[in-house]
């Protein structure tokens, strides 16, 4: 992955300033995610590849350093390199179906 090159003119910010701007947004999204996981617990059946992918992404949120979004998107990506012969669908599901 390419190294970031910070946008010149980006104002320096303290964590407090970032929290002022975006904490409430992050808060409601985290609660929505928690509610989604609770909803899964109340439902029957096992995890499909999407839910497995989501569970595998959760520890990445607590890793140190920048680049969490890229790491999660990469985790969910098809790791193969060659074109496939044919697809039986036009749609994507959000997580590579082959994820373990």
């Amino acid at each position, binding site marked *: *992955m*390419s*190294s*970031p*090159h*910070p*946008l*010149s*003119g*980006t*104002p320096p*910010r303290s964590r407090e300033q970032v929290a002022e*701007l*975006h904490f409430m*947004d992050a808060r409601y999204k985290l609660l929505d995610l928690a509610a989604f996981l609770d909803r899964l617990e109340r439902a029957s059946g096992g995890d499909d590849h999407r839910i497995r992918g989501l569970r595998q992404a959760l520890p990445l949120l607590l890793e140190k350093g*920048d*680049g969490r*979004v*890229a790491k999660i*998107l*990469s985790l*969910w*990506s*098809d*790791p*193969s*390199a060659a*074109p*496939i*012969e*044919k*697809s039986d*669908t*036009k*749609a*994507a*599901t*959000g*997580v*590579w*179906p082959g994820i373990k």
Partner: protein
Amino acid sequence: MRYIEPHGHMVSRTTDDYQAMTMAGCAAICEPAFWAGFDRKSADGFYDYFCQLTQHEPKRAAKFGLPHYCWLCINPKESEDVALANDVLALIPQFLKSPTVLGIGEIGLNKNTRNEMKILEQHIELAVKYDQLILVHTPHLEDKRKGTRLIMDALKANGVVKPERVIIDHVEEHTIGEVLDAGFWAGITLYPESKATPVRAVDMLENFASQRVWLNSACDWGVSDPIAVPKAAQEMRRRGHSAAAIDSLVYGNPVRFLSQCPNFKDPAALKS
């Protein structure tokens, strides 16, 4: 504030959207050819669609004072049918003479199949033959990283395509760096549910500063927001970016890329 909407599928939008975009500062709109949400059964359907893009939609936009431009292709979602795709490719050259056509797009891949690759390569050859700009659609979600790499390989393998004349759209955090490092322009698409939100887009901009990035709403018939670009500008303003930096991103950058096509006229120059 002024901005260019470099990627909007206005044939699927209402006049209320044109009104909202104009009121938010939109100065010009560019419409790539895309998938209608269902597969068209014949090249005749595409002939009509290209007429709509080159003749009818510019008139509809003009009622709101908006210059309207378009890109032509068969979208990768319909290129699995190679025979149909070849018929559509044969139609395109006659429409390239239209004064509002910007180039070939949005071409690319959807599920990264061999047939999609074949038609992508033919589109690239067509663009080279007629000296056209290229607008690339990268696949959705889990197929994006692989597809983006395959597309860049195909563009490089052509040997003639100049990366500065290609914009690779729908980049996200895991693809933007590779696209910019390869010398291409990168488009960040702002969607409420998939692709990037305005907040993530501004994070990417702050991390990958580049003069080769544009923002677009890609508003279409699905869940999308025709005024997503000014919302991202608002996010930049909240974070303390200057008015000049915002203008450079949402107006200056698309004008610089699109001005490589002689059909595109800087709206500011038109008004002066």
